[in-house]
């Protein structure tokens, strides 16, 4: 178990290191001089020279890279050029929107997918099963920002149940959750359909195993074998998809924040891009990559917890 853990941890650190080099090179090295890029064409030479000094561009690339990574490890993401506040503060504010949104969507999608997937497997070939298969095809094909727009169209424009966007803040918990509900549904529903389909296939495969027949022969009911034995063993493929979905949810959240005008990390990145605030773009990207790689690592650990054979 320890070697497995160390192996996975090493892989994670390696991925992070490569990711940071790639991001650093993409943003700071390849496009030429970041200072003149950020200031645009009309900048005076003095302004460019000032910014160069501020960004530490007079140092070598390696020194800047090490300073950047070293800062991030200590929670220092640099100072935003346009906002004039530490990027870590900006990230904290925006994380209060993006993280709850991603978790909300993940919970919602899992809570929907498990009962639906089990139902489809139990009623194989009947209409709940066919419904799940069709919904999963749609779930893969539908762009989630468009699905979000359709939800706005239905619930905000036609039915006028909710407002079309904006974030009410966390002063009132209920209001905060309410403003994240439509975005979370937009993210979760397509993913839930896909997850339910994966769960269904995994369950059907498990249900053909010998130990399931044994369990039934022991006198357990169909329902008991399904929930107690089959569901647990169908966990591995479901975990894999959940891990992948986190990456999708994160990317989806970045886009969907634009549909609902939510002040999250996605908005921060796009504002950074339009304002050419490379420090913000660089750090937020690294943070997102870190989140995805961390989740992959956690999924790998969860595999080992679910399936002892993988611990070798």
């Amino acid at each position, binding site marked *: 178990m320890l070697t497995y853990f160390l192996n996975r941890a090493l892989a994670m650190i390696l991925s992070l290191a490569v990711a940071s080099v790639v991001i650093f090179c993409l943003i700071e090295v390849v496009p030429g001089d970041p200072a003149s890029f950020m200031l645009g064409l009309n900048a005076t030479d003095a302004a460019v020279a000032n910014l160069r000094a501020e960004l530490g561009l007079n140092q070598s690339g390696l020194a800047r890279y090490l300073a950047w990574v070293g800062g991030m490890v200590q929670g220092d993401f640099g100072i935003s050029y346009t906002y004039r506040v530490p990027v870590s503060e900006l990230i904290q504010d925006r994380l209060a929107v993006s993280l709850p949104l991603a978790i909300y969507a993940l919970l919602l999608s899992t809570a929907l997918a498990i009962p639906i997937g089990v139902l489809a497997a139990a009623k194989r070939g009947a209409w709940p099963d066919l419904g799940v298969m069709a919904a999963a095809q749609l779930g*893969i094909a539908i762009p989630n920002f468009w699905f979000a727009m359709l939800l706005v169209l239905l619930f905000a424009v036609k039915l006028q149940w909710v407002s079309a966007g904006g974030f009410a803040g966390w002063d009132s918990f209920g209001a905060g959750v309410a403003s994240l509900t439509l975005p979370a549904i937009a993210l979760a529903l397509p993913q839930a359909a896909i997850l339910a389909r994966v769960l269904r296939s995994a369950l059907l495969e498990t249900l053909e195993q010998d130990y399931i027949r044994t369990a039934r022969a022991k006198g357990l009911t169909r329902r008991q074998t399904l929930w107690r034995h089959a569901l647990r063993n169908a966990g591995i493929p479901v975990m894999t998809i959940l891990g992948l979905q986190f990456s999708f949810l994160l990317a989806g959240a970045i886009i969907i924040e634009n549909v609902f005008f939510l002040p999250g990390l996605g908005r921060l990145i796009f504002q950074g891009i339009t304002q050419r605030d490379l420090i913000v773009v660089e750090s937020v990207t690294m943070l997102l990559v870190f989140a995805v790689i961390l989740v992959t690592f956690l999924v790998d650990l969860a595999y080992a917890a679910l399936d002892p054979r993988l611990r070798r």
Partner: protein
Amino acid sequence: MKTQRSLFIGGAISLVFLMLAALSLFWVPHEVTSLSIAARLQGPSTTYLLGTDQFGRDILSLLMVGAQTSIAVAVAAIGIGAGIGVPLGLLAAAHHGRIGDEVIMRGNDLIFAFPALVIAILITATYGPSAFNAILAIGIFNIPVFARVTRAGALPIWTLDYIMAAKVAGKSKFRISLEHILPNILNLIIVQATIQFSLGILAEAALSYVGLGAQPPTPSWGRMLAEAQTMIYSHPMLAVLPGACIMALVLGLNLAGDGLRDHLDPRLRQVVK
């Protein structure tokens, strides 16, 4: 027979869009670059079959050229992915278990670990939003997919007798890969290309929705959606049509891919439940 049906339906849907895109190269009902404020925001009519947008452009024409943009970006991205990924996969399989194989596959894992859309956003943000950079960003993430599929398909073939015969006959690994391995795994690659095609359409739509894809005046489905968003209260159809096109094309490609996979590999028919 069910697989035949999904291949047929999916293929038909995809073909309709491909033909509309091809047609738009030569002819569209109305020029998409000509703005006509007098004709703005009209409903469907005999002149404008699907109505016009806020600049008086014909929606049908925009959708047709948008299909062309989406398909061109996705296909070019597959070209990058397959063009680099397939040779890498063949190389890895030919040197199975050796250092080259290991380096290629670990490199693949690294790219896989990246959230694709975030990196795509990063690339298009620093190098300027354009269709070309969108192709590059999507294409890079196609490379490991094709490399994996190619390697996984090639490995079992390397153990077969006729490969041994080719080796004994003195053929180089390069020639064996090209003459014996590649033709035998072409069906796997084609199926994967269909899947990457649909993913590419989705990625292009997302990038152009946030303004990082093809730039105006080139129409794209994603940007049509972004532009329609401000008018969702007054003119919801503007927001419905481009999204429906994206969904239909992706659905069509996925169905075709599923059907094609089952059709090309009958062994799977028993396994797939």
